[in-house]
């Protein structure tokens, strides 16, 4: 039996949950079933709402303005990326990862390539690895900048949003000159990258780093030191290290709660072991800590980029001809890297066929969102928005 039909047979044998209908309409839509008669009410926030960051839907049970209970409903932007991976060659899935997380597209794209390379022993030239790291860090900064703007907008400040977007625009322009695309990159391919850096890249990148540093000073004055901002975030939405562990939270949110774990240092991949950078952590675990950790991370990313620019080796950037058909080796493989939101894992189950048997992405936002729901109980609506913003969820990455 060939690939797809064999798979269909496997799915047919899978025992279906008989309570499927009840799961859907019994648990997730409580407001349709019963209206509580204890003075509380349900508020359906999303999927269309200014601050649910895409299509997250929160069914809130409220007492006045106080959140008693919260039920997140996800799946509104499910596009079956993992299924798509099973239906084509490994290389045909290359455009997809960056569409899972449209803010950290480069990191997803590079991560997928590295997962496949590691699994099947494809070698990558030095220069390609340095270029990949550098553009990934640029991507991390642009993602954090967008988060910064959106977070302050959730808190009601509009100006930082547009200032951050201008900064992000500069980074996108720079990445555009390298990769040819602005948001959903398909830049890395198996064994290297598709295009070399343009000649004026180093100069432009250095100028950008300079301006970015001065802009961070502005943000510090405009936002970080603002009394209203402090009172909105200080001590709000505290996540304990125990919660971090039990929900498998990763990324800046975990590091803000005192869990010192960054894949780039804990399990160094690519060239991260050769680079000099710090992993910022804080112990408070509140919205302010998450904000400060991300800001420090942007600074560290700038440092990484500087080192990359300085030490960029010369040489080939990849195989002469793009690797369309990968020589596979049956087995299960796992590769993990650090996305702007936390640990991104690629689980790959390969057989002899040229397409993956199963490709699963372990995306960080799903775990982070689950932990947030516990913190929400007992807060006000405004805090709900602040906490949700501070977690930095990207819905297409959760739904895939």
């Amino acid at each position, binding site marked *: 039996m060939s690939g797809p039909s064999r798979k269909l047979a496997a799915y047919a044998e899978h025992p279906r949950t008989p309570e499927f209908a009840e799961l859907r309409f019994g648990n997730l839509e409580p407001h349709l079933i019963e209206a509580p008669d204890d003075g509380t009410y349900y508020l359906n926030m999303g999927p269309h709402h200014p*601050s649910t960051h895409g299509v997250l839907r929160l069914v809130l049970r409220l007492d006045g303005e106080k959140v008693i209970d919260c039920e997140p409903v996800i799946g509104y932007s499910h596009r079956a990326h993992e299924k798509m991976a099973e239906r084509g060659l490994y290389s045909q899935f290359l455009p997809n990862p960056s569409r899972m997380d449209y803010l950290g597209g480069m990191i997803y794209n590079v991560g997928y390539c590295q997962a496949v390379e590691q699994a099947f022993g494809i070698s990558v030239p030095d220069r390609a690895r340095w270029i990949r790291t550098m553009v990934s860090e640029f991507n991390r900064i642009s993602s954090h900048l967008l988060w910064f703007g959106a977070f*302050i907008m959730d808190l*009601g*400040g*509009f100006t930082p949003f547009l200032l951050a977007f201008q900064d992000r625009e500069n980074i996108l322009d720079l990445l555009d000159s390298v990769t040819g695309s602005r948001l959903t990159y398909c830049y890395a391919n198996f064994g290297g990258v598709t295009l070399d850096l343009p000649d004026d890249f180093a100069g432009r990148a250095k100028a950008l780093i300079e301006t970015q540093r001065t802009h961070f000073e502005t943000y510090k004055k*405009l936002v970080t030191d603002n009394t*209203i901002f402090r009172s*909105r975030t200080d001590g709000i939405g505290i996540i304990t290290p125990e919660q971090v562990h039990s929900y498998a939270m990763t990324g800046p949110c975990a590091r803000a709660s005192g869990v010192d774990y960054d894949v780039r240092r804990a399990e160094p991949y690519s060239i991260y072991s050769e680079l000099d950078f710090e992993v910022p952590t804080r112990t408070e675990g509140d919205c302010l800590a998450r904000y400060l950790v991300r800001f420090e991370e942007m600074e560290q990313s700038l440092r990484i980029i500087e080192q990359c620019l300085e030490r960029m080796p010369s040489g080939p950037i990849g195989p002469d001809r793009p690797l369309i058909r990968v020589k596979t080796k049956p087995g299960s493989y796992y590769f993990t890297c650090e996305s702007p939101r936390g640990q991104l894992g690629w689980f790959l189950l390969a057989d002899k066929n040229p397409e993956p048997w199963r490709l699963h992405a372990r995306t960080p936002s799903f775990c982070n969102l689950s932990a947030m729901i516990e913190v929400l109980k007992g807060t006000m609506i405004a805090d709900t*928005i602040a906490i949700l913003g501070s977690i930095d969820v990207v819905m297409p990455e959760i739904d895939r």
Partner: protein
Amino acid sequence: MPALIAALEGMLGTWLTQFLLGFTALAALITLNAMFMVWFERKVSAWVQGRLGPMEHGPQGTLQTLLDVIKLLGKEPIIPAKVDRTTFILAPVVAFLPALVLLSLLPYSEDLVFTNAESGILLVFAFGGVSLMGVFMGGWSSNNKYALLGGVRAVSQNIAYELPLLLSTMAVVLSAGTLNISKIVQVQTAGGFGWFFMYQPLALIIYIIAATAETNRAPFDIPEAESELVAGFHTEYPAMGFAVFFLAEYTYMFVVCGVGAALFLGGNHGPWLPGPCWFLIKVYFLLFLMVMFRWTFPRLRFDQLMDLAWKLLIPLSLANLMVTALVIKLV
């Protein structure tokens, strides 16, 4: 022009003519102010954010608001099926109408006062309170949880902030010895006395904060907190219903800034330029401050907003009032 007025007086009598002229002038002021403020706000926000703002229609986009109004007029006024129809339709009207009365109480210059009421300040606060009813009616009748939350927030916020607003103006009233706004201005312009903000700086600061909150402007815009309540009390209002709420908001901003200019900044007093010019300059300076607040600060949380009013502003303004009373008694 004088001939025309004389002809009108011959036909309608003096009182009706004056009423008509005043009404027309005030209606024009409301519309022009709102149109100017929308453009001004967009330009200031663009300046703050490093953008250009509206540029397409007219020089520097000055005609943009006019075209926006035409667009809003052309839109279909949808009334959702499950709203309380009468209240829903009345709400914007109730919110807007007191604005007309309030504008007539402001002293634009020494002889350009539409209603020279002895208890002018009290009337301002009385009619200002009525408009709150419109906001709450809109929130209540919309049959929408976001709108209801917005309406409820508006009521508690306005009640909390009316007190420091009133108390801070009372300090000025005590110093001037009258409730009549024109007379308060005259006290400041009389030989070398100086404007009241020099004697009452604390009252001015409290007044500006409370006035920003009273007009539901950021950072106190929690009744329409976009990121929390979508659009708050006017979530369900399309087309002109929304526009009238908008018009009311900008008119109230003009009114509170007008009262502030008259009470603290000497109203129409100033060198070289005629009185109304100075009055408008001061009003728009205060409005500029309010616009800058909006584009600089994040929003307060609801309970923090209440804390600010009840725990800080009201005790401060009470203390300020008592000190003022003591000083007046002793001096």
